């Protein structure tokens, strides 16, 4: 009994440590070239940018294609309120959607362009005013999108030009507060619409 316990405990230890990401992504990449010089001058960094995920958990989520439907944002922006004021999606906050691939997320500067004077007594407006004064911006968390390894290169502009409504893919965000992943945007969802509307459906249309 004690012998099995020891061996078993050791195996568990190794397995759990690995899974807990204690060794992180590096264990899977023995040969990541490390920066040569350890001698850094003031202001220099040894940081590295890589496609590796920061944790094993993140990698697992990406592999299984799991996205949370409800994402907690650093700031609870109410779409409902603004849509109710007849501000269109693309007017201020998601402007680049008809020009290029990315719709864009607003900076606190965008909010302040109205809220310098509008509803300035509300607590959340005071919060963003203070952020603006401190030079801090929203660190929005991504709601819509795909894991990097899906290599989806979605381009908004042709869809806007084809008069696809924002709500088709994003759901009725106008009736929500913070955006939620309302539509299950699987590849099938995209391909079905492409086939219906006679848009190209070869791999290279989206994955390149």
């Amino acid at each position, binding site marked *: 009994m004690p012998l099995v316990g020891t061996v078993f405990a050791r195996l568990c230890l190794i397995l*759990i440590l690995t899974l807990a*990401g204690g060794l992180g992504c590096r264990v899977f990449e023995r040969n990541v070239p490390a920066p*040569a010089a350890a001698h850094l001058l*003031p202001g*220099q960094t040894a940081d590295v940018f890589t496609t590796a995920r920061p944790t*094993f958990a993140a990698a697992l989520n990406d592999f299984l294609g799991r996205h949370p439907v409800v994402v907690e944002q650093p700031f609870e922006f109410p779409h409902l309120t603004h849509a109710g004021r007849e501000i269109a999606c693309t007017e201020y906050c998601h402007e680049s959607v008809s020009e290029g691939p990315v719709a864009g997320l607003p900076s606190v500067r965008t909010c302040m362009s109205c809220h310098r004077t509008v509803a300035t007594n509300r607590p959340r407006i005071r919060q963003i005013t203070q952020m603006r004064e401190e030079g801090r911006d929203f660190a929005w968390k991504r709601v819509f999108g795909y894991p990097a390894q899906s290599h989806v290169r979605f381009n908004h502009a042709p869809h806007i030009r084809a008069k696809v409504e924002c709500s088709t893919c994003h759901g009725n965000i106008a009736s929500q507060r913070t955006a939620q992943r309302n539509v299950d945007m699987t590849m099938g969802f995209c391909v079905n619409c492409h086939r219906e509307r006679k848009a190209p459906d070869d791999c290279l249309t989206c994955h390149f």
Partner: protein
Amino acid sequence: MDRRSFIKLTAVSGTSAALASCGNPENEIIRFVPDEDIMPGIATMKPGVCTLCASGCGLSVRMMMADADVVRNGQAGLVRIHAAKKLEGTAEHPVNHGGLCARGQAAVQVTYHPDRITQPLKRSGDRGQAKYDAISWDDAIAELVSRLDALAMAGNQKSLAFLTRHRRSHRAALVDRFLAAYGAPGAVAYELFHDDVLRRANALSFGREQLPTFDLPNARYVLSFGADFLGTWNSPTSQGHGYGLMRQGRPGIRGLFVQVESRMTQTGANADQWVPVKPGTEGVLALGLAHVIVAGKLRPASGGGRAGALIDGWSSGLGSFAPEQVETITGVAAARVERLARELAELSPSVAIVGGAPLAQSNGLFTALAVNALNSLLGSVERPGGVFFTPQINLASTAKGLSGKATASLPLDKIAAGILDGSSVPQVLLLDGANPVHAAPKGWRVREALEKVPYIVSFGQFLDETAALSDLILPDHSFLETWAEALPESGSLSAVASVAPAAMMPLHQTRGTEDLLLDVGRRLAKPLNLPWENFEALLTESVSALPTTSTFDTWTEAQEKGGWWGTLPAALTTPAAPAAQIRPFAYLEPQFDGDAGQFPLHFLPYASSAFLDGSLAHLPWLQEMPDPLTSAMWSSWIEINPTTAAKLGIRDGDIVEVASSQGTLRTAVIVSPGIAPDLVAMPAGQGHQTFTRYASGRGENPVELLAPVTEAETGSLAWAATRVRVTRVGDPDGRLILFAGGSREEEGHR
């Protein structure tokens, strides 16, 4: 361990793993408000100027949004910036016509280099230890000002020295103006491959102290003596563009090209005829061709004009340069000399080019003058298909404050000698991008000399061997973050001033050196009273003086196009200098260092495609770029002829010791068919002791073997005049890395 500590351990390691960043964890991000309005995903193009070499190519910079890591008020976070993503050539720029060389493509890595100096630094350890502390800009400037004030108070203004690279630009003119106003000698320029011999020859032959421009698109026959004009010499992108047109740009007409050299360069590989020649005898060959042309009445001798008059024996028919004598001296067969001469004369327009190793011999000036005389004879000077001189903008007339030249300064070797014997020691040295500790011969003892200078300030963006001796570092912006400009001395038939505003905001706390000098000039106890508030004001004044070429005013248009180009009125052009009263030059045998018995092989260090003289070795794309002649990456090597290698018992990849009178080095061998049996060649660029993580301690520096032989007339370093001996010391040890394409995963590693 027991269960409790086990759980604690996994909890801790799990959490720390969650926060550890191999990438960007989304949990703890702080974002700062961007300083600019940028639309994500949309590219805009901005003009730019590449300043990595003196060509001054025009750039189209592709800008897009990126997330930069910054620290603000002690907090680390992200901020959206407008970032340069890709550099392209400007389509209409008269130098590069839309093309951009490999080095220009890699130039974007300068801005984003991880080892860039990000803020002013003050030395904290001993000199040379490269230990620095951060200081504020106010303190740094105050320090420099106080040093200059102290010098001025003691009446020692002449003890201020400024060491820079060869560049023609408003910046260089501003530096000279600053020095003149302060009372110091003019800037000293040092570069390993600087072509001053050719400039002097052109000044003597044509009154133009500048590098030549070749109208290749219209040439029918090009004869190049040693110039790597498609790779690394003069204005390669412009010449490459012209070459393409020379070959296939005219229906039914294909220009021919002959290269004369002892080691096949990337350029020479493209020649229709490749003519090996004995080192230092290229001038004799040029005059041999002239002899045949004149003797055969293919051109009148009087066509030699001013350039011909500089050659001893020209007027009497160059009797000592008959083909048989030329064969004896140069090794080129007499019949070949005759044939080449006839081709040159008959396939008109023809033009001769000379540059690189032939001019880096003790008789380099003679060689350059001989080729100039040949061009004159052919009628190729300032005629379509021939050799031109880019009209030079006279800055004294476009920016009035720039008039008044600083007193000429000595060349670097004389300055080093003056320091070492104590006769003339600069008290303050300002370094602006030159790296003589790496690129000057050991015999000049530059490092030793610099260590005797009490105070050294560097404006460089990187810590290289020379900057590592500095006491104060005031890092400049990269060329994408500030006014980038150049006044190309060659590469364009029309006058051109490349100038572009900053493409992006500075990434770090750097400051433009031009503005810094103007600021310092104002803060001195005796202000210099330079008439410009900042560098932009100087550029505006100068460029606005140039004639308009469209409906917009010159300055507005220049900022949009990335420069000004067009016809320069005489009042704004530097005129040609009249012929000097000077005795003609005769051929002198080249003098080599090292007797032929002990050192049987000529040693040729050459500008590498990737790094030129080594100033670009810090860019990782260039380290990984396979060398066009050898496919080597991240390496040094020496090229040896197969017969010579066999005689020495050396095989491909073996390690050899190369010895000159100055010292030894060890490197790997590449056996190459394209090199004469009595020559070995090694690319310059590697062998940095200190030059960022990518270049430090990598490879070998051929300059360490160079003897301080100088060109007889100009005193320029004759870097091709050293002889060496090569001995095998070992088997391949893996230091030589080749990109072998198909066999890249086979045993071919060395």
